[in-house]
């Protein structure tokens, strides 16, 4: 009898935890529809001049969609960059959130990231979304990029990097 009771408890705990695990892993997500930014650098026309140094993308250069599971209090969106394949560390990438996106969630809140932050090689928090026990999603959270440090003192080349967004609670 005791053995049968123990087996039932084990079965219930296992099933419950499995359900929570599989539900969480499917609902938490971030997507960035392909919106690559080819930064337009105006040509230098006057001998002796340098580039102005800082260039910004359109305010809606990237548009992030974030999916949120039921049981998480908040979700954080992180950002970092990777050379793809060649970047110059003197070129400084920055990003900021320029809109709140759209959601059907009542009581959810998006915060942070409205001022430029430097995008490093290791992930840093860009913004976060708080939810109260509801499954929801945010769509169309606009992101603007900026690159600074552009100079003729850097080797003439084409530089490419990947901006990576990561969501985690």
């Amino acid at each position, binding site marked *: 009898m005791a053995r049968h009771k123990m087996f039932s*408890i084990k079965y219930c705990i296992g099933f419950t935890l499995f359900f929570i695990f599989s539900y969480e892993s499917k609902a938490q997500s971030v997507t960035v529809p392909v919106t690559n*930014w*080819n930064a337009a650098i105006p040509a230098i026309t006057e001998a002796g001049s340098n580039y102005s140094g800082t260039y910004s993308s359109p305010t809606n250069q990237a548009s992030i969609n974030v999916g949120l599971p039921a049981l998480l209090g908040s979700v954080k969106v992180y950002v970092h960059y990777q050379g793809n394949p060649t970047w110059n560390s003197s070129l400084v990438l920055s990003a900021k959130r320029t809109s709140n996106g759209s959601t059907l969630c009542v009581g959810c809140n998006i915060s942070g990231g409205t001022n430029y932050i430097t995008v490093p090689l290791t992930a840093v928090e860009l913004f976060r979304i708080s939810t109260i026990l509801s499954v929801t999603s945010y769509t169309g959270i606009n992101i603007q990029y900026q690159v600074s440090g552009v100079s003729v003192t850097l*080797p*003439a080349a084409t530089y490419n990097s*990947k901006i990576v967004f990561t969501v985690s609670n």
Partner: protein
Amino acid sequence: MRLKKLIMHLIFCLIPCAIFSQSTIALALPVVTLLDIEPTGTFALNFTSPTEAGQALTAPADNTTKWVNYTSAIVSGGLTRRITASVNQVIPGVNIRVQAAAASGAGGGVLGTSSGLVTLSTTATNIITGIGGAFTGTGANNGHRLTISLTVNTYANLSARTNTPIVITYTITD
């Protein structure tokens, strides 16, 4: 015991996993090669006749009003640039000389090095070498100040002349 193992195993699986997505940024920095002399305009260098028999001509005062401005962007490991100068004609008995000063002003990067005092001919001669990725700043008081001077090299070859236009051509090249 087995129950404990099962619970620990499933709790471990609950540690949140990071989900990610990405976009790309591309930026092209081209090769740049720009040079000019500032300010624009001509100037005169006139020898002065002596007033006492037996004295030589007096050479004109040096002209120091011109500055070399340039912008240079080269590929990684690429050849550095140099600036040459030449004249359209030489004057018998006279040396036309130019000396670039060290870079000064608002510029940055790998600026060039002066080749010192150079006597010009119709063949291009280096006046600044070793220019890498660099910019001098624009206008007078930025870049390399030029000192342009005339001296007598062979007195016997001098002949009287007025308004002989001398064009100095400056070139930036690899």
